[in-house]
């Protein structure tokens, strides 16, 4: 690539092609707060020349999971058509082409683009199959300098991977500009790919899917068995393979196959395994295309009594039959011991090996052709296919030497890289740093981009400052510590509170600030319900009361600690996980944060300060009406309906985040950003003043009661909802206060505690907790 010749930033983007991918990319640009022009062709009929792009935006507003993070984001998308509005490309700094995968049509669009774009405007294709060299054939050198491939995954908001392919003539500055934008603004993790067919993730992924389907047919394994063997034990999403195909659409399979067989060389291994099954062809032809169609390998059948039964496709007969739970994978093989899994006797081992052996071998064969390092392949599969481990990490679990031996025994190809690594591993830890095995036979440090700080890396090089069974405290550098939840699902319990209380004097004397952060699947789904249920079942009321008081004390100690506290939520931040954020000085949230006070779902109310914190936020919202009721009504509405924000942007609308709180788009940058936010507050830091409340008292409670009664008659609220809502209303309205009196925060905490205990003793609350633990779903009693 030529030297970096420019430094500029992307302030406006144009996406051409308003199909699922193009529209989704445009939505994600808008989610980042960047204006975006979305163009498509003229509609076949009708007067509205922008109908195609407009229709795409309208459809996205109804799609679940939502492509937009907020309604406000949708307003940043300007729609148009390529006949009338291509000239507007001149205002854009980056043009993403996401039109049909036809070389001639793409080339003709580029020719038009070349005439209207401003030189220096980046142009990229979202192609998943066409080589870059062919795309830019016939274009000027200037165009080639600004051209690259940016391959997003579907859906663009939720899939973290982007593969970037730069050509030999691509300008490093232009590529750098796009790279930086998709990383920081769109939150994608960039994997550099070479200009080879299918790039990385789809090449390995398609091979894997094909091999897994073939093997199920060949070995007479049922879809449920295949998914049990090939799902969790291999670290593949719990849907398993057939569940995954149902999700992405069975009709996509022939397309993936065709695109790869037509572009891969004839001697590529994939060409040998590519085949279609009559049963699958028939399913597609009759509309059984998966979840979006009439059904897939799985389907839910409704009985006459309204009951629902999960059905599975019999691969032999083609008929649906009730889905089985095979229960055939046991012991460590079920928990990620891949060596054990492939050595298991019978069909479990046979199927696991038939899928894993060729897939891992194939993955090892595409380095450096598809990407220069093993890290690229692993990242691509983890980020693009949601694998828990990348192929090379899996190989390390099995042992490369053992794998080679087994591949040879099965007469599968053994790629040079596997021979080369010998009895070593693809990753190792050296001096507290993670290193990977390069194609030069040497180990190299895994280098993180600037602004990426991961606890995972810190853990390799240090010991925790404090640690117990549910939490740990880490030094993350520059005088900042990170409080990590470590329990199952990051559940919160007395141990977490104890560690918080221990951390405060330590940070006060030796450090400057604290961030609440972890790298689990979710920030925290809240208090440990199992423990709570146990205490309730043995009527250990004083224990329950103690845990409420202990949580309140720990969270308030954090809030009023003499140093800045920044919470960095991501994924689910529910109940107590939400309350720790509400009690922090500031929140640095990942864009994909799903935060909420969901306690009412299990028949209780927020007990660790959530009630008063939410009122405080709404009372201080300058755009919310004043007086004793509006903030209370809002908090009541949000808590009583267990509202969970579907993004950080929505969390601001609900008041879980203040308008001064900030959002990080890229998950890997969250800790770094939170740390910077905390450090920025260190100078002259003073703890917040205790809020005081003017609340409506019984008159407000009477108003809320009327509202709940109407929800009851409308059939929205259940009998126990009404009981819970009454207690919640009592707390939020300040108990027996009068609007002329001031309610302190301590009094609010006391009210929370009293109401919590009343509800905790209620048998219907216990039933709700039990049901949640058993089924993961709320009981509507």
């Amino acid at each position, binding site marked *: 690539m030529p030297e970096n010749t420019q430094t500029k930033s992307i302030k406006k983007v144009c996406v051409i092609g308003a199909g699922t991918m193009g529209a989704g990319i445009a939505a994600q640009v808008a989610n980042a707060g960047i204006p975006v022009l979305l163009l498509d062709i003229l509609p076949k009929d009708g007067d509205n020349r922008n109908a195609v792009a407009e229709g795409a935006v309208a459809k996205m507003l109804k799609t679940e999971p939502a492509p937009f993070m907020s309604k406000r984001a949708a307003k940043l998308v300007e729609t148009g058509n390529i006949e009338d509005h291509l000239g507007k490309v001149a205002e854009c700094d980056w043009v993403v082409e996401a039109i049909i995968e036809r070389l001639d049509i793409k080339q003709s669009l580029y020719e038009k683009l070349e005439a209207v774009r401003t030189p220096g405007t980046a142009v990229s294709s979202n192609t998943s199959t066409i080589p870059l060299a062919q795309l830019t054939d016939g274009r000027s050198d200037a165009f080639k300098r600004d051209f690259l491939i940016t391959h997003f995954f579907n859906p663009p908001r939720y899939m973290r991977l982007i593969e970037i392919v730069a050509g030999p003539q691509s300008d490093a500055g232009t590529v750098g500009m796009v790279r930086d934008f998709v990383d920081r603004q769109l939150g994608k993790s960039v994997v550099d790919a070479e200009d080879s067919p299918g790039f990385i993730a789809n090449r390995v992924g398609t091979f894997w899917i094909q091999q897994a389907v073939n093997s199920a047919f060949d070995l007479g394994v049922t879809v449920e068995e295949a998914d049990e063997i090939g799902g969790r034990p291999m670290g593949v999403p719990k849907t398993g393979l057939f569940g995954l195909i149902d999700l992405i659409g069975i009709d996509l399979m022939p397309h993936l196959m065709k695109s790869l067989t037509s572009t891969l060389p004839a001697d590529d291994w994939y060409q040998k395994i590519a085949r279609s099954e009559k049963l699958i062809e028939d399913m597609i032809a009759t509309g059984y295309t998966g979840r979006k169609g009439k059904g897939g390998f799985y389907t839910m059948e409704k009985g006459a009594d309204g009951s629902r039964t999960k059905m599975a496709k019999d691969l032999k007969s083609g008929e649906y039959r009730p889905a089985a739970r095979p229960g055939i994978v046991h012991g460590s093989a079920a928990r990620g011991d891949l060596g054990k899994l492939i050595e298991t006797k019978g069909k479990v081992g046979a199927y696991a090996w038939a899928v894993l052996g060729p897939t891992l071998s194939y993955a090892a064969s595409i380095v450096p052709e598809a990407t220069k390092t093993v890290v690229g392949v692993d990242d691509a599969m983890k980020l693009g296919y949601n694998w828990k481990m990348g192929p090379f990490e899996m190989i390390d679990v099995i042992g490369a030497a053992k794998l080679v031996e087994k591949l040879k025994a099965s007469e599968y190809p053994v790629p040079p890289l596997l021979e080369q690594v010998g009895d070593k591993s693809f990753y190792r830890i050296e001096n507290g740093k993670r290193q990977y095995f390069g194609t030069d036979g040497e180990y190299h440090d895994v280098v993180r981009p600037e602004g990426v700080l991961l606890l995972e890396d810190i853990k390799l090089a240090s010991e925790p400052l404090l640690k117990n069974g549910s939490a740990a405290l880490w030094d993350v550098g520059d005088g900042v510590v990170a409080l990590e939840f470590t329990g199952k699902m990051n559940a919160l319990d007395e141990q977490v509170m104890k560690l918080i209380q221990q951390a405060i004097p330590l940070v006060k004397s030796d450090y400057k600030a604290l961030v609440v952060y972890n790298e689990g699947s979710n920030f925290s789904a809240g208090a440990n319900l199992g423990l709570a249920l146990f205490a309730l079942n043995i009527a250990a009321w004083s224990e329950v009361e103690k845990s409420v008081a202990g949580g309140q004390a720990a969270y308030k100690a954090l809030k009023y600690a003499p140093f800045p506290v920044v919470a960095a939520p991501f994924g689910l931040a529910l109940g107590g996980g939400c309350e720790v954020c509400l009690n922090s000085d500031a929140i640095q949230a990942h864009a994909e944060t799903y935060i909420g006070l969901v306690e009412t779902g299990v028949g209780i109310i927020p007990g660790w300060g959530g009630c008063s914190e939410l009122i405080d936020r709404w009372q201080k919202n300058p755009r919310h*009406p*004043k*007086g*004793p*009721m*509006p903030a209370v009504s809002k908090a009541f509405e949000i808590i009583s309906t267990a509202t969970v924000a579907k993004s950080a942007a929505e969390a601001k609308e609900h008041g879980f985040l203040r308008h001064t709180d900030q959002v990080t788009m890229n998950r890997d940058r969250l800790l770094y950003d939170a740390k910077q936010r905390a450090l920025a507050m260190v100078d002259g830091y003073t703890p917040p003043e205790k809020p005081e409340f003017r609340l*409506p008292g*019984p*008159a*407000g*409670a*009477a*108003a809320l*009661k*009327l509202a709940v009664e*109407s929800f009851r*008659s*409308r*059939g929205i609220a259940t009998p126990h909802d009404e009981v819970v809502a009454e207690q919640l209303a009592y707390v939020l309205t300040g108990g027996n206060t009068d*609007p002329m009196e001031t309610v302190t925060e301590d009094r609010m905490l006391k009210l929370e505690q009293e109401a919590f205990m009343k509800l905790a003793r209620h048998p219907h609350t216990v039933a709700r907790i039990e049901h949640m633990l058993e089924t993961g779903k709320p009981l509507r009693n």
Partner: protein
Amino acid sequence: MTDVVIAGYVRSPFTLAYKGALAKTRPDDLAANTIRGLIEKTGVKAEDIEDIVMGCAFPEGEQGFNIGRLVALLADLPLSVGGITMNRFCGSSMSSIHYAAGQIAMGAGEVFIAAGVEGMSRVPMTGFNPMPNPELAKKSAAYLGMGDTAENVAKKYGISREEQEAFAVKSQEKAAAAIAKNAFADEIVPYTLPDGTVVDSDGTPRPGTTAEDLAGLKLAFDQNGTVTAGTSSPLTDGAVAVLVCSADYAAKNGLTVMAKIKSMAISGCAPEIMGIGPVGASQKALERAGLTIDDMDVIELNEAFSSQSIATIRDLGADESKINLDGGAIAIGHPLGATGARIVGKAAALLQREGGKYSLSTQCIGGGQGIATILEKA
């Protein structure tokens, strides 16, 4: 005693709350524009106006302070013109007319603008700070939601969902026919938005609504009930203004007299069935006028809900063919504080258009009241 007459009636376009064209318009601006429209249309001398009597059901926020006076100032009326806010919930602006009539009868003024406004997009139906008296809430249905009262009336009077829907369809049909004939052009004062868009027609009616459409709607208030959004009046933004003056003043100043106020009445009822409020109030007003329901040629009955409209019609023994000739609130909308003046002004206009001698305008009021006005064609 001096005769009191209606000498002009206008209104703003009625648009759906939150999503309609006027959702972003301040109610005081909308009311001021409507009042200017009334002065222009009638040619009344602004300096003669004694008072702006402004009905409003939730007079707070942008329709708070004393919106009557503020609207007089906004409309650039002479400083001598007064302003008062009148609240009787849905009966507010009919009370504005009653108040003006009483003042005129007392000799406490000759010309009044009786008006009403409700920006339901901008001030919620309970106000921003609903704080009911907990003791009263326990012993009475004073604070019961309006939808629940509609369900109570439907149950008590045995009015089926189908009957309610047939009534709603008819209201939509009558409004659609009126729109097709451009029958509202005369009464609507267009409003120009800051971006230059002129709003000059109602956004509320749903022409083409069929019984099948309505049958598919979800129950809005009670899962075991019969009332849906389709058989309820929609939340609406709108303003209304009616010129009320003495017959002498109208004659002296060459104003077009539409009708004379014959009688007026208020009557309380049980809050939980507030929808039958019009029955008692109408009977009182008829008695005071020495007339019977059969003497009425035009009836404007506010359609808060189909159920209470049907119950009222039955109890009064009213002839349905005389009711809401251009459609009612189910189609046209119900900006709470503005509706009362609309149905009196509309009745006066209909007497002019349709002929006939007497009209009855009546409506139910949350908390358990009814209000009624009988006009005699000029």
